[in-house]
């Protein structure tokens, strides 16, 4: 570790912008961005599965609220949702006296809530579409076997829906990564926050933002690769047999 630091220092010797200090800002930013995006995607996914099932329900009182939720969160910019959750909650009477305030005081949790609700809304719609397009024959076959609704969901509908949703969900993950760039407006030092800091400090927009663009690009490719791999594994039965 010691020698790595010295090596980097030697590499940066004549560089006024990319010092160990600014690189550490980018490093912290990378950690924050990955945490924020990963956590919101995981929680969003967990929320989205029951919501997607409920969205296709026959009961109006289950179907309509979920429809409304998706409609609102997909119909408004994430930036506005973030502002509402970070700056807006401040104006709820008495909120600062409840235990909620401990969570909402720092910017991380409000951002996480905004991102999670946003991605859950999109993911719900993606899964609903996938569930809806389950071939009728599979459902009829499951019924003919005397499967209960729950067993049918678990064994037949959801697994095949997950596979079909995979390419669209991969896009959602990448969109979420890119959308997370707005976290710095509520003072979070994410990747974009680090870039904005370096830009403002050294008046060097190209250096600061090209560097951060390269990091985002690497992350995007990593996600793309992961989803390619998953698709190849999980959708293997759909490929032409000659391959």
């Amino acid at each position, binding site marked *: 570790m010691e020698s790595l630091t010295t090596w980097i220092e030697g590499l940066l010797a004549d560089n006024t912008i990319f010092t160990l200090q600014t690189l550490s800002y980018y490093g912290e930013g990378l950690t924050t961005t990955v945490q924020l995006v990963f956590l919101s995607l995981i929680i969003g996914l967990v929320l989205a599965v029951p919501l997607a099932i409920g969205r296709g329900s026959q009961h109006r009182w289950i179907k309509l609220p979920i429809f409304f939720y998706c409609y609102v969160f997909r119909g408004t910019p994430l930036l506005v949702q973030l502002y509402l959750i970070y700056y807006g909650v401040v104006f709820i009477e008495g909120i600062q006296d409840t235990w909620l305030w401990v969570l909402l005081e720092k910017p991380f949790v409000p951002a996480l809530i905004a991102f999670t609700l946003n991605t859950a809304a999109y993911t719900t719609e993606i899964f609903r579409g996938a569930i809806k397009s389950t071939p009728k024959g599979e459902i009829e076959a499951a019924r003919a076997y005397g499967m209960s609704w729950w067993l049918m969901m678990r064994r037949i509908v959801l697994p095949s829906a997950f596979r079909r949703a995979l390419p669209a969900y991969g896009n959602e993950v990448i969109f979420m990564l890119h959308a997370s760039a707005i976290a710095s407006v509520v003072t979070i030092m994410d990747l974009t926050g680090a870039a*904005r800091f370096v830009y*403002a*400090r050294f008046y060097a927009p190209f250096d600061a933002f090209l560097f951060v663009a390269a990091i985002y690009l690497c992350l995007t490719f990593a996600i793309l690769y992961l989803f390619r791999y998953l698709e190849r594994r999980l959708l293997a039965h759909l490929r032409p047999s000659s391959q």
Partner: protein
Amino acid sequence: MQTVLGISLIGATLFAGSANADVRDIRIGVDVPYEPMEFRTPDGELTGFDIELGNALCAEIGIQCEWVVQGWDGIIPGLMARKYDAIMSSMTINDDRRKQVLFSDPYFTPPSAWFAPSASDIEMPYPQTLEGSTIGVQRGTLQDNYVTDNFGDVADINRYATADDMVLDMDAGRLDIVFLDFPVGKATLIDSNAGDYKVIGEMITEPKEYFGDGFGIAFRQRDEDLANAFNEALSTLKDNGTYEDIYGEYFGAK
């Protein structure tokens, strides 16, 4: 008759010269509005910190000064083209401008200050009491640089795009303390929330590395006598309390 006139003219010149070299009445260029430094009152009169200090300086030197309003982008060319003889318009002294114009001594360094809720127990010296606190600054400002370098290791720093966002979070109780241009903090925190906030410690204008050289009056390079006259008058006004009175009028007592 001509000789008498000639002698009296020489006498007058000598007399004036004994007071202030050959300083004559001048015109001063200014870009308005830039409240509270220079702006117009509702009835159209020029006023502000620069204007009042400038008038006081001219009175001290014993010359008549006329203000000429000029847009910022053409303010240095205007000086070179002799549309006026000095610029007193919150111009920060820096090396690029020094190549073109001659600056007086700095007459004002916009101070920064710490603002905190009235109940706050943060006090001097800062590094110890700021440990573990959350400091608000406007991103990319000199205050940001100062706080980042000096307290980045001991405190959390929240950086905001605008001073308004920062004030909102201060009201929300998310920030322990903010570091701002004093006039901005006074207007947004102290004046509009009577009693809720206070200034902690002294105004901060040092070190120069962060806070710059301050505002100077600009002259043409050759007008050294004029610049000297203004420098002398400035130090007189600082000594006799006039400067402090004008300062207090616009920024509150030091």
